[in-house]
């Protein structure tokens, strides 16, 4: 790797933690709502907890360089379990907690973890289920003792017992920790994260201390994050973003990481914490907006009118105010009144009042959704990143925020665009390698350190911002040679609250067709208001009136697609509404909820064929996997519909 980029003495997490415990001893570091109250730990306490656990690990026989798998939802104890692994010279490997036993088995076997830290009985059960095929797993440490009494405890230890063991052996174990930590430097592996991968088996991305700390440092400075900020940690711990925010940036800047009480209370906890730095995937913002709109639909006519009137004004001047552009006094006054009446209370309800820096990434966000939040005065920005880049590739600086770009290169990142449009980058955050997979490493990262993103895009000349078109391998040509970018159309469709997910097909074909997933919340609410009875998702999805509505949406999207000269060929000619929701358990989406286009196309091949051969209806049967791994099947007869398209006047003959 390149020359040192980190300040001396702050190049590993144990060192950062020691500094924080000194510098911010009484500043809250981690919070978690438990028993109805926000419990809090300051940096000094965190250091003590982490060291106790690290010594406990050593007492149990953890070696330097071992991988420690961590499974569970966002809880301070599990973040400490990761920090403790580093403190003991080992490497944390967080796993997706909703992964089923088979998926977990692959990762656990691949990383060869001897120690597994599991949150509760549910996760322990999963590990035990696959343990027969995993000779490498020797110790399972669990945090929540509930229901664990009757287990065979030869390989199981409670988290607090491990800590107690560590505290007891302090005089013997502390020097061991010290010795191990002295050997760590900026090139030591910091963490290994498995990419969910829209194709194939997950890959273990090895990230060094330089990668993580340099990225955390640069991004914290970019947005001026400091010890007074706070975040809500609710995204999967196995995702690189959570590691950067809740460990990397938190340890670098000393800000406070709050963990929700349970996954279901996230929204209420968000409101109570009021984070100043907030990150969410577009899906979250879409869902939130859908909920707002549903509730406005149910509100009294007076409130409805007030809302729409002031939202129209906010759309007009809100983003300009946020960007510091000139706005007339009258408009400012009206916005101020709107803020008192509508925007302020709405932001408060959503828990976004204090957001100073908000990011969305992972997928493109619908411009209308993006503008909605910006117009409320929430500084929502976009960033573009990857696990392999320790998140940051590009991000939008304050004042240069636009819906259709992903921003300028992050500090220290170099970009280049290949001839085929694929985006390449090089930075201090660039990953070391894929674990035990030199072929993939070689095909992704060239000897000079340039990494292929797999996304096609271009740099806008006027602003220097990067624009992403689509996954490079998804961008194709249609039969007539015009460009096919499915994501572009899907994102337009997904803006409608009724549409949760859309999959567009058309590569190498005459025209495009689409699968639609309806949003049960939004459409269900509409059905209730219109006295339409339904018993299941499937029944609602097949309702003729629902199909009419979706058809209208698609026709509107076609009009807007036709306006784009490059992509006008991507208008949708026929569609169907799927009889089931696309689900990670069925492999149709990744755990981070990105559609696996190819797999969906293969799995529902009969439906794609039917869309192209002009059939009016089709009967199909689909296998589904339940959360506990059992399988069942759904039978359905689906109606296929034609959609009006806007005739494209291609290069009118001169």
């Amino acid at each position: 790797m390149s020359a040192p980029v980190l300040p001396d003495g702050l190049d590993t997490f144990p060192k950062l933690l020691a500094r924080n415990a000194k510098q911010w001893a009484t500043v809250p570091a981690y919070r978690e709502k438990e028993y109805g109250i926000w419990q809090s730990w300051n940096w000094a306490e965190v250091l003590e907890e982490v060291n106790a656990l690290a010594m406990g690990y050593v007492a149990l026989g953890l070696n330097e360089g071992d991988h420690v798998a961590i499974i569970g939802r966002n809880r301070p104890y599990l973040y400490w379990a990761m920090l403790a692994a580093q403190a003991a010279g080992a490497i944390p490997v967080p796993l997706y907690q909703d992964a089923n036993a088979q998926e977990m088995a692959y990762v656990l076997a691949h990383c060869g973890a001897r120690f597994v830290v599991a949150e509760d009985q549910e996760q322990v059960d999963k590990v035990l289920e696959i343990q027969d095929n995993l000779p490498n797993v020797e110790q399972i440490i669990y945090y929540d003792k509930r229901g664990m009494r009757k287990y065979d405890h030869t390989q199981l230890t409670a988290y607090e017992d491990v800590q107690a063991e560590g505290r007891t052996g302090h005089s013997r174990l502390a020097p061991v920790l010290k010795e191990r930590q002295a050997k760590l430097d900026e090139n030591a592996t910091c963490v290994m994260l498995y990419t969910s991968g829209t194709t194939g088996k997950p890959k273990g991305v090895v990230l060094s201390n330089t990668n993580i700390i340099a990225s955390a440092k640069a991004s914290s400075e970019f947005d001026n994050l400091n010890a007074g900020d706070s975040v809500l940690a609710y995204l999967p711990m196995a995702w690189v973003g959570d590691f950067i925010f809740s460990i990397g940036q938190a340890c670098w800047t000393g800000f406070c990481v709050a963990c929700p009480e349970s996954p279901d209370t996230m929204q209420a906890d968000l409101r109570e914490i009021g984070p100043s730095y907030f990150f969410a995937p577009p899906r979250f913002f879409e869902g939130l907006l859908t909920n707002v709109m549903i509730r406005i639909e149910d509100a009294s006519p007076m409130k409805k009118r007030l809302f729409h009137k002031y939202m129209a004004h906010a759309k007009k001047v809100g983003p300009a105010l946020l960007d510091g552009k000139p706005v007339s006094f009258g408009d400012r006054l009206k916005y101020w009144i709107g803020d008192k009446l509508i925007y302020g209370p709405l932001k408060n309800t959503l828990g976004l009042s204090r957001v100073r820096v908000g990011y969305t990434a992972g997928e493109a966000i619908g411009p209308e959704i993006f503008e909605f939040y910006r117009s409320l005065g929430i500084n929502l920005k976009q960033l573009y990143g990857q696990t392999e880049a320790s998140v940051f590739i590009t991000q939008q600086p304050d004042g240069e925020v636009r819906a259709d770009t992903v921003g300028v290169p992050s500090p220290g990142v170099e970009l280049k665009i290949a001839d085929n449009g694929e985006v390449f980058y090089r930075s201090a955050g660039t990953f070391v390698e894929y674990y035990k997979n030199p072929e993939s490493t070689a095909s992704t990262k060239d000897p000079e350190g340039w990494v292929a993103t797999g996304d096609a895009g271009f740099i806008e000349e006027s602003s220097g911002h990067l624009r992403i078109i689509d996954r490079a391998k998804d961008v194709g040509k249609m039969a007539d040679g015009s460009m096919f970018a499915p994501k572009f159309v899907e994102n337009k469709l997904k803006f409608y609250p009724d549409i949760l997910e859309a999959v567009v097909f058309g590569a190498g074909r005459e025209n495009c067709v689409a699968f639609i997933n309806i949003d049960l919340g939004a459409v269900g609410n509409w059905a209730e208001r219109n006295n339409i009875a339904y018993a299941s998702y499937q029944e609602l999805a097949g309702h003729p009136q629902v199909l009419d509505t979706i058809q209208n949406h698609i026709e509107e999207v076609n009009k807007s697609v036709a306006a784009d000269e490059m992509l006008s060929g991507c208008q949708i000619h026929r569609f169907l509404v799927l009889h089931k929701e696309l689900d990670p358990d069925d492999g149709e989406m990744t755990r981070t909820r990105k559609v696996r286009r190819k797999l969906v196309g293969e799995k529902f091949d009969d439906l794609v064929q039917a869309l192209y051969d002009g059939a009016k209806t089709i009967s199909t049967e689909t296998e589904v996997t339940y959360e506990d791994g059992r399988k069942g099947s759904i039978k359905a007869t689906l109606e296929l519909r034609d959609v009006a398209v806007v005739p494209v006047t291609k290069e009118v003959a001169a």
Partner: protein
Amino acid sequence: MSDSYVTPDGRTIGGKVLEMRNITLRFGGVVAIKDISFDIREGEIRAIIGPNGAGKSSMLNVINGFYHPQEGEIWFHGEKRKPMKPYQIAKQGIARTFQNIALFKGMSTLDNIMTGRFNQMKTNMALQMLWKGPAEREEVANREIVERVIDFLEIQAIRKTPVGALPYGLQKRVELGRALAAQPKLLLLDEPMAGMNVEEKEDMSRFILDVNDEFGTTIALIEHDMGVVMDISDRVVVMDYGKKIGDGTPDEVRNNQAVIDAYLGVDHG
């Protein structure tokens, strides 16, 4: 029969907590319970089953003092129990849930469960109106117990929701929460799974087993779902037309001819 025994899954069951001796309960000319004796031991899950109208709920009402039997004796912790009001019995450490949910529909989950602590609150109305001082301290202490119950039953998300707005399965869980808030030694559950779907039943079974395991609470339950009863209980009493027709482990009861006849009917041909 010796006083303590060990269950197949390795729990040690202690001595008699409650003993019913020759209980007979009449409503006018109707005999609801006829000369029934059985005991409930420390730490066990004891089921009472039987066809409709067998007298199961009446039996639970006798235990918690809602009905007073005309004949027979009730021994609680080795002492003969004098006739008492239900609230006095509740103070002795017996809590229950009801067949038809009996919650305060307009109150939140939290407030409903707080009512389970009512018997343990000692400050009087004047102090509570003053609020600062003993009443506040007492409320905080009781709230902590309630919050642990909420955490245990995983109902944090509905803490502030009025129970009337909750689905049936969750209301049942809230009712269990209210009973648990009283920190009972003996918990009576009247058809805790009636009207639930399979998933809700699995959840409820899990909670019942966890209550027993975590807090060592003795549980007596009435249930119609035989699968559930046979899976989770240690011993079963079978009633039919007010009489006891069987008593023993699930396996013993399952093979008891009188029980089979009561459930499947007898061939009169």
